[in-house]
């Protein structure tokens, strides 16, 4: 590691680049080979019932992950508290049923949009570190939630409208799956075709170039977080409907699952690239992995461990594959 290397501008050689791409390809193939092998050797995997379970789990995580995709592409790393917001949105939805079903949905969605959107506003305007801000916001939300609810679950008020359809099967497929598909379609079209979406991609690629080009950085960042907030709230509504109550424990691994879904799907941590459709695939892969582990009798920590390893490997690969990565 001579000093000359450090002083002269470094360029990855063409052969070096190919090597990195080759490694990525190899790892991806290996990963899917292991995955398929695991599915074949796990009893009970190939059944309609199991597939339904996977797709339902994927749906909830996937909806949150759609929103998280906007944050990642915008170059703001991740939000570490979308899961908590989803759980609190669930409680909000349940509580707000006194205003009717539609009213409850609107209130919950607005709640999620505002709570996460405000974080985005702070991050976009001041440039504060997104991970720390979202961690702090998560702690705040938890504390406030416990304060208001006294730590007990929130139950639907008397004479609430029926919301069971939100989680019941429709033509044999659970309703959340339809919501997921709609979210993916809307999310993808919006980020790929809209002016706002284009701005998110450009800003994620290079905030400095974005500023010079006159992109409204603060507005774009806030917008990305608002989308994430809406998605978290929608997922929360479905969770609340499923549990018929609102609690904090529902959020345990949601955030991590959502982040993993985005990364595994191939959206890079550095931002500026990726898509919602990729995240959807990632969500299904993550749900499959969790399902496999569950079927084989492994507990949550093992899931965490496996996800952690996957996330680490994906992060490493995405940095290796980027010319932009690295500092002097």
């Amino acid at each position, binding site marked *: 590691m001579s000093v000359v290397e450090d002083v002269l501008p470094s360029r990855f050689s063409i052969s070096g680049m190919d090597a990195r791409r080759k490694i990525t390809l190899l790892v991806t193939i290996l990963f899917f080979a292991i995955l398929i092998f695991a599915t074949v050797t796990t009893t009970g995997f190939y059944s309609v019932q199991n597939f339904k379970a996977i797709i339902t789990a994927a749906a909830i995580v996937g909806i949150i992950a759609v929103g998280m995709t906007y944050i990642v592409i915008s170059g703001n790393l991740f939000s570490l508290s979308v899961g908590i917001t989803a759980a609190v949105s669930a409680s909000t939805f349940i509580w707000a049923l006194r205003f009717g079903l539609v009213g409850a949905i609107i209130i919950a969605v607005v709640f999620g949009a505002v709570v996460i959107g405000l974080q985005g506003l702070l991050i976009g305007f001041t440039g504060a570190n997104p991970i720390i801000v979202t961690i702090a916001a998560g702690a705040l939300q938890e504390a406030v939630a416990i304060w208001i609810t006294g730590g007990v679950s929130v139950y639907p008020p008397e004479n609430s409208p029926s919301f069971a359809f939100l989680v019941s099967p429709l033509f044999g497929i659970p309703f959340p799956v339809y919501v997921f598909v709609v979210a993916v379609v809307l999310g993808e079209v919006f980020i790929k075709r*809209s*002016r706002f979406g284009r701005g998110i*991609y450009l800003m994620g690629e290079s905030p400095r170039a974005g500023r*010079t080009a006159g992109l409204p950085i603060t507005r774009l960042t806030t917008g990305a977080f608002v989308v994430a907030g809406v998605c978290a709230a929608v997922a929360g509504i479905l969770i609340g409907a499923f549990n018929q109550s609102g609690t904090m424990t529902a959020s345990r691994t949601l955030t991590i699952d959502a982040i993993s879904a985005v990364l595994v799907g191939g959206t890079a941590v550095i931002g500026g690239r990726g898509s919602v459709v990729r995240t959807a695939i990632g969500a299904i892969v993550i749900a499959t992995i969790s399902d496999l582990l569950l079927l084989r009798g492994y507990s949550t920590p093992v899931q965490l461990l496996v996800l952690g390893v996957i996330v680490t490997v994906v992060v490493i690969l995405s940095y290796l594959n980027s010319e932009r990565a690295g500092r002097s």
Partner: protein
Amino acid sequence: MSETLRLETQGITKTYGHLHALNDTSFDLRVGEVHALLGHNGAGKSTLVKILSGVVHPDSGTVRIDGEEVYPRNPRHAQDLGVALVDQELSLVSVLTVEENLRLGSRRVVSSEELRTLLDTLGLEHVKLTTLTGSLPIGEQQLVEIARALSRDAKILILDEPTATLSEPEIERVFAAVRRLAAQGKSVIYVSHRLGEVLTLCQRATVFRDGKVVGTKDVADLDRAGIVEMMLGHLPDFRTGSEKRTPENPQRISIQGLSIPPRVPAFDLEVQGGVIVALAGQVGCGASEVLRALAGLVPNARGTVNLNETKLPLGSAVKALAAGVFFAPSDRKEEGLFLSHSIVNNLVATRLPRVSRGGFIQKSRQNAVVMKLLGLTGIAPERRDLDVGVLSGGNQQKVLVARGINQPRSKMLLFDEPARGVDVGGRADIHDLIRGAAEQGNVVIFHSTDLDEVFDLADVIVTMFGGRVVSVRSRAEATPAAVLTDMTHGAEGISA
């Protein structure tokens, strides 16, 4: 200064592809001498400095220090050979104390008393070893950097544009320190654009031009005009008499009292559309800051700027763009282009509202704009989906420039080094694009450190030095010698 040679280089050649950065050059340095290296950007002096300090290896030629042939392999090795470089970019760590910075990475054991003596020699008696380096004024940090170079037992000190960002008293201190060093027998290579300083401080001067040494003269035998003549050489074939442009509805801009702390105290200018204005000056003259301030990228800029009688808000790039101001920065890779995005995306990045309807981008409108611009720049349409990052430097710059032109709502176009890193052919194309924009009535202001470019493109030449305007001339009445003189105005300063 004795006649003994401390350093001798002969036949140094360095080429980058087709470009001869240095072509069979020779240069010598005496013991105890302060020797200036002069020459325009790209003339070769910085390449020689890089070779001497071990950053770059020459293709051929020899370097002798105190009679011995040496090959500086890397900066560390060059240091061991006694060559120390104090670069424009300070390499001090601002969060460390002065003493820690002086010791940083040093192989020698140096006592604190030695360091103290060193600082005193450089006029830093009042600076304590325990002071945080970042809290010192830039001028004193510069001297600390020099002290660090000296603490490594440097026999040859290379100062690269040491005074570009210094105030008058700080410059005096640096001069005093350099004189003291020369008296002690150290040799100093002084690279600078500031001719006044060179005439005051140095004993001899070597002028570079187009990779060759034009000559080495005793400063006593030179004056400013003489140096300028050596730097310019033959006058290139400039377009004589720019065809007067008469656009139909020219924009107008009036800048009064634009101040950008701390470098630019007050800048005034009035420009009419159709007239291309050059802000000519060297590094640190303040022209870049002015352009950036107009583009809304400097939050604490103050002053009054009126674009067609409407106030132009400063401090917000978004508002500037909305007001019809477009800016192309000098660093296209870091600040200008989105390298992983396609040519299409880059071209429309500044006009997203125009190619969208109802918040969604209309492919047809986008295509129309892109095809038009591609036609103007001469980039093949089939390549439009390529990542900008894989294009050549010249094409990248064309994309950057093109993304600002041909916008119906544009009023002012600002370019910082519009043809940086572009070959002659590409530069001609880019200049044509800019002229086209002026035709349409836009106010066009650009900054360049390259005289050729200034004379090729500008109708009005504003020279800047030290954050102030030195002179304003029309192209017709300006001569390269006069402009270069103003760009390199000496330490005498102008009456404020």
